[in-house]
């Protein structure tokens, strides 16, 4: 019964989305009338329906109802309770239900919170969002239905992939999806603004808070994924320039460009068309990401079970979104209005440079990611693009971003600002850069590490000067805005430093050790003191104990999940300020004399904590920007 009810509710959500689309469209002439009320109520009801359907799917997982194919394929009676719940969004159908839930959630939020002073634009956006809901709920109901029954009911379930049995991975997809789907609000508002013929400023002001929240969630989601790859997959890395990772990085870059250009558009009307264009592209990129992950057209280390037919559905949806949005943009963008214009070294010009660099990086990543597909279309098969491409093509652009970044806050809007006093001030920042570069060279850093340290010194000095210069701002919203700028940009510097530090680390050491034998990793000596059983609820495990000299013990595990017939490794990490000692346990091997030796893989990863710190600071910065924005709204009318 539960699955039939769930099936009914998602179909109901689909019907209500049609109602939301149509009545919202008809309401545009009279945005406070009957049709508008129907559109808004439809969006609330659709949210209620899909939310209950989602709870029902969780219930099916809790009951281990294996008559439902999706549950049977992704759960198991032996699975711990928490992971039964997390398994709800662990596979394709469930993750699409989560996607749809968030999409109707955004629809209801637009109905409720967006643009209280412009009901005509709001109801148009609600209508457009209804169209998006229609596309994705249609895909859910007709091609990815998680509530379908199965005829032969298995006794215990096919189990979930055990490496997905991890707390970070349970929350990583929802966070990432809030980011992906949150960008749909910016899409709907931009399209609605183009249809309604609003000026660029109004559109930028309307979509900026939504884009900010979505981008912050996307940052958190990507970071959680990278963290999970680092300690759960046990490959020793956190970013592989893999298609699935690039799929999340591209919308992140575009959304980062969007939240910057929207500031300039809101302030002075400049980049009006560009901001609307980015809003359309950002959500299209999110959808492209879903396509790349689900269609399996590219070989990915993160690939999931694949279904080309579903890939085609998503590709069709993406074509409708990008094609429709961009054609509308082409016909209506003249209505956005001209900005006030700006000079060569104004704040706008630097925001323009930021946008140019961010979108070019996104384009570079897109080319590298899709190149194998392009080559296949041209008749060459089996081409892949390695990480070397992305590192080489993206790094100089990201470095240019960091060089320009600290100057921007000192430049005035519209007018030229790069005068002698700023040049003098900025020349002081060179000193910390030189000191950091010399230090990096002193400790034996590579040329890339020296350049990165120098760049970080320069940028951080500029950020400190920005903080000092603007410490006296009075308005609460300006204070939060300053905090946002400093935190997020310092976070970017930390990630750049962490990435470079990590890339300079020694490659991993692999050794086979019997009890009592030793290996060396960097300055550490590891001794295997024993291996014991450490079985858990639904797995058998070997746990190695390694004495670390100097100081400490590491206990990596190797787990066997019988239900999935799969082995996983639990790495053991000792974190310090200088870096992580990272150890994983491989297969046992018998030696000629009958002794059992274990394969141990160990590496020292310098200053990995910088990456975590950076991600945390960027998320904090995103939150501070959202707060600043909210304060600014309540204090409207104040000069700022």
């Amino acid at each position, binding site marked *: 019964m539960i699955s039939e009810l769930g099936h009914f509710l998602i179909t109901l959500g689909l019907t209500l989305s049609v109602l939301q689309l149509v009545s919202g469209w008809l309401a545009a002439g009279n945005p406070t009338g009957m049709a508008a009320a129907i559109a808004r109520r439809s969006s609330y009801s659709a949210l209620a329906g899909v939310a209950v359907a989602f709870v029902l799917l969780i219930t099916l997982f809790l009951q281990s109802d294996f008559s439902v194919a999706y549950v049977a394929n992704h759960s198991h009676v032996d699975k711990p309770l928490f992971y039964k719940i997390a398994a709800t969004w662990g596979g394709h159908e469930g993750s699409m239900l989560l996607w749809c839930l968030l999409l109707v959630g955004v629809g209801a939020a637009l109905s409720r919170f967006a643009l209280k002073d412009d009901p005509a634009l709001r109801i148009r956006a609600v209508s457009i969002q209804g169209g998006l809901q229609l596309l994705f709920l249609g895909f859910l109901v007709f091609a990815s239905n998680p509530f379908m029954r199965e005829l032969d009911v298995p006794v215990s379930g096919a189990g979930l*992939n055990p*490496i*997905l049995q991890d707390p970070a991975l349970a929350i990583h997809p929802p966070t990432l999806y809030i980011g992906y789907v949150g960008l749909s609000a910016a899409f709907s508002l931009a399209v609605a603004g183009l249809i309604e013929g609003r000026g660029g400023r109004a559109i930028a002001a309307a979509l900026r808070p939504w884009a900010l929240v979505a981008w912050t969630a996307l940052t958190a989601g990507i970071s959680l994924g990278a963290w999970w790859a680092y300690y759960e997959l*046990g*490959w020793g890395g956190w970013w592989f320039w893999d298609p699935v990772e690039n799929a999340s990085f591209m919308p992140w870059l575009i959304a980062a460009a969007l939240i910057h250009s929207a500031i300039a558009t809101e302030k002075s009307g400049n980049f009006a068309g560009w901001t609307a264009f980015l809003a359309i592209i950002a959500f299209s990129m999110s959808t492209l990401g879903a396509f790349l992950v689900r269609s*399996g*057209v*590219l*070989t990915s*280390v*993160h*690939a*999931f*079970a*694949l279904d080309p037919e579903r890939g085609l559905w998503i590709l069709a949806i993406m074509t409708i979104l990008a094609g429709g949005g961009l054609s509308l943009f082409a016909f209506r963008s003249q209505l956005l209005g001209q900005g006030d*214009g700006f*000079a*060569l070294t104004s704040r706008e010009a630097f925001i*323009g440079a930021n946008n*140019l*660099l961010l979108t*070019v990086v996104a384009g*570079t990543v897109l*080319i*590298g990611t899709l*190149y194998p597909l392009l080559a296949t279309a041209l008749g060459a*098969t*089996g*081409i*892949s*693009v*390695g*990480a*070397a*491409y*992305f590192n*080489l*093509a993206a790094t*100089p*652009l990201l470095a*240019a971003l960091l060089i320009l970044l600290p100057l921007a806050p000192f430049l005035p809007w519209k007018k030229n600002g790069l005068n002698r006093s700023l040049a003098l001030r900025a020349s002081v920042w060179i000193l910390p850069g030189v000191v950091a570069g010399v230090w990096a060279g002193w400790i034996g850093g590579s040329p890339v590490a020296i350049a990165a340290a120098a760049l970080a010194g320069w940028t951080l000095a500029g950020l400190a000067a920005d903080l000092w210069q603007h410490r006296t701002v009075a308005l609460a919203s300006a204070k939060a805005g300053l905090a946002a700028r400093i935190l997020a940009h310092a976070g970017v510097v930390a990630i750049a430093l962490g990435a470079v530090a990590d890339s300079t680390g020694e490659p*991993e050491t*692999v*050794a*086979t050790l019997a009890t009592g034998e030793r290996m060396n990793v960097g300055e550490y000596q590891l001794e295997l003191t024993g291996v014991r059983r450490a079985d858990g609820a639904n797995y058998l495990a070997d746990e190695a104990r390694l004495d670390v000299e100097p100081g400490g013990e590491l206990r990596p595990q190797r787990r066997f999940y019988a239900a*999935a*017939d*799969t*082995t*996983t*490794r639990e790495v053991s990490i000792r974190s310090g300020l200088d870096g992580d000692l990272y150890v*994983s346990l*491989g*297969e046992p*091997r*018998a030696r*000629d004399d009958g002794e059992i*030796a274990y*394969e141990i*893989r160990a590496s020292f990863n310098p200053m990995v904590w910088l990456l975590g710190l950076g991600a945390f600071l960027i998320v904090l910065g995103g939150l501070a920007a959202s707060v600043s924005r909210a304060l600014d709204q309540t204090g409207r009318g104040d000069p700022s």
Partner: protein
Amino acid sequence: MRARTQRLIMVGVAAIVLAGAIGLALFALRDAIVLFYSPTEVAASPPAIGERIRIGGLVEDGSVELPSSGGARFTVTDGAATIRVSYAGSLPDLFREGQGIVAEGAFVSPELFEASTVLAKHDETYMPPEVEEALRESGVWQGDEDE
């Protein structure tokens, strides 16, 4: 400076950045492209010794050796031809006999492929698209009939 000159400079700078990025991307692509070979293709036209390529297929049953000194040796097959692979690193968790894998590396001799990376997937039902293609061509693939 007049507004028009300033705009010209900005457009010029943007064009230079774009051209530079495209040039850099093309240059980077040249070195980073890795070609995929199935065992049959290797047998038909062997790649040069030392050339960085990807190979893929099924891990042949009973072919996996785990020397006590570490690393692994195994045979990759597409049903029609085989490649002997040696790998010094630690095998991925989802590596199993009968499983589809992709390995990146180079031939060190005509008979031995030395892998620097072995890719097996998160998902036990996953088959790399190149491997599926290779198996289809050699007639081993029957996945469609099972489903």
